[in-house]
């Protein structure tokens, strides 16, 4: 029996966390949650995730800073950034810092799930 793929969802919005947890678990993924940048960084550093869905604007530590720290520590964690609808800068910078993809908020769940399936 194949192991479930493990995803970390880091977003300070409870709505986004609830939505993603339900959608991802219904698709057969194992899901962990973080509601701020610091816990996202800690969980990502200690856990063994197949993918991290990371919001940019979070309390404690910004999403881009979390990616930067992981890369400085030599961690190769595939990250999908969630960015604001007009936030081109974050979208571009997330690629520069090693993210594999980004999705703008508000998002289509079907699109997000398709991008996740593509990665995993």
């Amino acid at each position, binding site marked *: 029996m194949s192991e479930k793929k493990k995803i970390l969802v880091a977003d300070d919005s409870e709505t986004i966390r609830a*939505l993603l947890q*339900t959608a991802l678990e219904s698709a057969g993924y194992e899901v962990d949650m973080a509601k701020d940048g610091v816990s996202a960084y800690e969980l990502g550093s200690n856990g063994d995730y197949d993918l991290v869905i990371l919001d940019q604007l979070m309390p404690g530590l910004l999403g881009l800073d979390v990616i930067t720290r992981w890369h400085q520590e030599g961690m190769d964690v595939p990250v999908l950034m969630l960015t604001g609808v007009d936030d081109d800068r974050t979208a571009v910078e997330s690629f520069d810092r090693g993210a594999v993809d980004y999705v703008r908020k*508000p*998002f*289509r*769940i079907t699109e997000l799930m398709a991008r996740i399936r593509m990665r995993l």
Partner: protein
Amino acid sequence: MPLDQIIRLALLVIFSVNAALVTALVTLKTVHRRRMRLHEKRRQGYLAVLSRHLSYEHCTDPITEDMAEDPAFLDALIDMRNAITGDEVATLRRIVNRHGVIERQVRHLDSSLLLGRRLRAAVAIAEIGDETAADALMRHLDDREPEIRIQCARGLGRIQWTPAIDQIVSRFSGEDPWVRARFSDTLVGYGTKATWPLLAYVRINHRFESKGPALALRTIGQIQDDQAVGPMLEILDDAADLDVQLATIEALGELASPEALPALVDLLDDEVWQLRAKAASAMGGIGDPEAIPRMFGSLRDENWWVRRSAAAALARLPGGVDALYAALEDEDRYAADAAAEALTDAGELVSARRRIDAGVSDNEPLLAHMERGVVA
């Protein structure tokens, strides 16, 4: 009764009343906090239910009548609506319609005696954005409560209900200023569909009033519809009210069309300094370097605000910074100071200092000018 007894009695009464008030306040606060906690708990539960409805095609989680009436459910619905886009919004609307959520809120909006409930209903309808509520939203553009009028306009904008455009524009004249400003935001959301109704409104009303038409013109500027340039130049030619003229010029600057340049250049010689200043600013927005020689002349305007506006506009034009550096040597000290100020605002002073510190340059005209001192 002896005086000391009276005093003791009075103190006792005062103490008792205070104690009762404090107890009442603490109780109210405790009850309120508990209500908020329970509200939050229910909201989290509803978020989970809605998430399942969006994630599972045949989700059978019940949404009851009690839930549909619960403000926590409305909050969860609104949060979910703002988190998603595309097909999922349609799915959410189907859930909403199947359980009569919008109908309930329309009933509250129409007939509740409680302002809080009516306002919550207006916000919920606006946020959820369902066309079935369009008629109710249109009716309540005339609601007695300003915030409800604002939310209804927002809701109509959210569903892009075009019959509402004329209705919202026509209310510019009679509305409170802050409601009008929120109406303007809604119209910007309609985009170019709102341009012609706004222009028509200005054409009809600018001879009789200024506030409404001025805001309408600024709204057109924010919409950024190039097709409005020609009609706005006609309005500029025709308008007698200063506020309307200034708003037209400002909007022309936002539209940034070179077609407006000749009219704006003419205004640099107008006898009214506000028009000269606004025209200079607008030319900065258009960004045509052909305007540089004429703007350079405005650095010597008799009015300081015109000089300042011209200098700031020059800083935005390609090649304008060079013109400002040349103006530092102008024999008119006021022109030179205006140029220095604009260069400083553009970051040139910081750059000059860096160049000196790095040894790249030993002669910076802007620094030299600042050391000479500006004219008071």
